[in-house]
């Protein structure tokens, strides 16, 4: 235990050192006035980051931008999770349904989410609905894909055993197929989180009037490098937090799987 703890401390120290070195190099470089013209120093960016919670970028303060982006992400992601898991599992378990849905799904799957942006804007306008739809598309594909493979690769022995014990179709689906696919589903959710996050940022970059993507793109339009870097910083931190959150959820849902291994 102590060895593990020592290892952890070593890791944390190394991480802190490498960040410190990076910021130091950046700071030294920004002391040069020509460099500072293109790229502000780390402390300017951090200062702007903290002050943006009080002063605001554009019409709103930072917390508003973060919350509105997160709300777009959440609505699209939850819808994609519910529909995606349902579709994926039924597609993986019922062969007739699979033969019906699979071609349609394969028709749409190769198109990258970002390519949908203009069409979605054309259909849903430039309001919130367009962002929800885009996040939905981004997360939906990988969630369906993984749930589908999960349901397809349920252990045959378990299925046969259940059938032998006289389990009906409904029981089979709810008590065997769904729990057995949870690891695959959570893998899909992890990919889905990341792609939903990148979709919402991209959607805001292309067309929006608030949100963290908007902060970055208005920074570009007003030639404000500090603002761009603040935006990217926020995007990184939230993306990291979302990934950690989903990993935690997976840990809880797949506890049985880990213990078994």
């Amino acid at each position, binding site marked *: 235990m102590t060895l593990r703890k020592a290892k952890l401390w*070593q*890791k944390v120290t*190394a*991480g802190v*050192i*490498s*960040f410190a070195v*990076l910021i130091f190099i950046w700071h030294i470089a920004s002391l040069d006035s020509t460099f500072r013209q*293109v*790229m502000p120093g780390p402390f300017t960016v951090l200062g702007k980051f903290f002050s943006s919670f009080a002063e605001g970028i554009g019409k709103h303060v930072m917390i508003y931008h973060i919350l509105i982006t997160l709300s777009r992400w959440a609505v699209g992601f939850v819808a994609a999770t519910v529909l995606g898991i349902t579709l994926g599992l039924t597609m993986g378990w019922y*062969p*007739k349904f*699979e*033969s*019906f*849905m*699979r*071609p*349609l799904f394969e*028709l749409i799957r*190769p*198109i*990258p*989410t*970002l*390519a*949908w*942006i*203009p*069409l979605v*804007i*054309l*259909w849903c306008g430039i309001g919130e609905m367009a962002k929800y739809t885009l996040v939905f598309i981004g997360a939906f594909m990988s969630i369906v894909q993984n749930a589908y493979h999960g349901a397809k690769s349920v252990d045959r022995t378990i299925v046969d055993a259940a059938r032998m014990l006289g389990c009906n179709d409904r029981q089979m689906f709810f008590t065997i197929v769904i729990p057995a696919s949870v690891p695959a589903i959570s893998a899909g959710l992890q990919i889905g989180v*990341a792609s939903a*996050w*990148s979709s919402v*940022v*991209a959607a805001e*970059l*292309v067309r929006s009037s608030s949100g963290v*993507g908007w902060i*970055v*793109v208005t*920074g*570009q339009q007003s*030639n404000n*490098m500090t603002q*761009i*870097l603040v*935006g*990217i910083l926020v*995007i*990184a931190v*939230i*993306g*990291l937090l*979302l*990934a950690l959150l989903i990993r935690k959820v997976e840990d809880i849902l797949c506890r049985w799987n880990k213990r078994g291994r």
Partner: protein
Amino acid sequence: MPSAKAKKSKKNQSYIWLSILSLILFFFIWWLFTEGSLGTIKENVLPGPIRVFKTLIMKFSNKNPDGATMQVHLWASLKITLIGYLFGCLVGIPLGIFMGWYEKADMFINPIFDFIRPIPGIAWTPLFILLFGIGMMPKVIVIALATFGPALVNTYTGIRQTKEVHIWVGQTFGASKFEILYKIAIPSAIPFVLTGMRVGLGVAWSTIIGAEMLAATAGLGYLINLCRGIYRPDIIIAAMICVGIIGAILGYALTLLERQLMKGGRW
């Protein structure tokens, strides 16, 4: 279980009419509500399948309305993607090997990398546009950054998963540390490297479309975004079809490469 597999494919065969039916139904409903008798959806919202198909064919010879044919846009996107992708792989794979092999280096680089990774490639675009203008350069960097992540992570995992027994065998036979890396760790990581390259290519292809929407004068993303402004969804859908087909072809090419390189079987 070859027999089970054969049985399964036979079972799928019997439902093939359902697949065909679903595709026909899809196009029929699409046609019915746009060009057919129930044509309630306006052409500048969703054009019919025949119209889209005609536009797709026409666009390869017709320069209107954006001043370039489809193949010019295709080539513009593809060129930038491939250059950026190459750079991303050239940096990401060696760095992944390095980080996977030297634990000390890993401890220092990994935290920074973990912090940068959740940033979608597309979010970097405004920064590099401001630094380098709207030419090819910023997009190549953005694509390289987008490819870099998956290439590095997968290579890293591959090197980390080298079987200890294999390393011991190498050590017993007196291989130097470098020989073990070069002859054991890297070859056994190749399946992972290829997975990383495939994921990276998908991400790169998706990112270029987004980057071209933000700043470009040619390319499929530019075409798609331009046609939104002038209400030409038929061109948008035609271009999306092209994006999908090219993406599928690129993915398939890497699968072929994978098969070629892994002829020795799985190990």
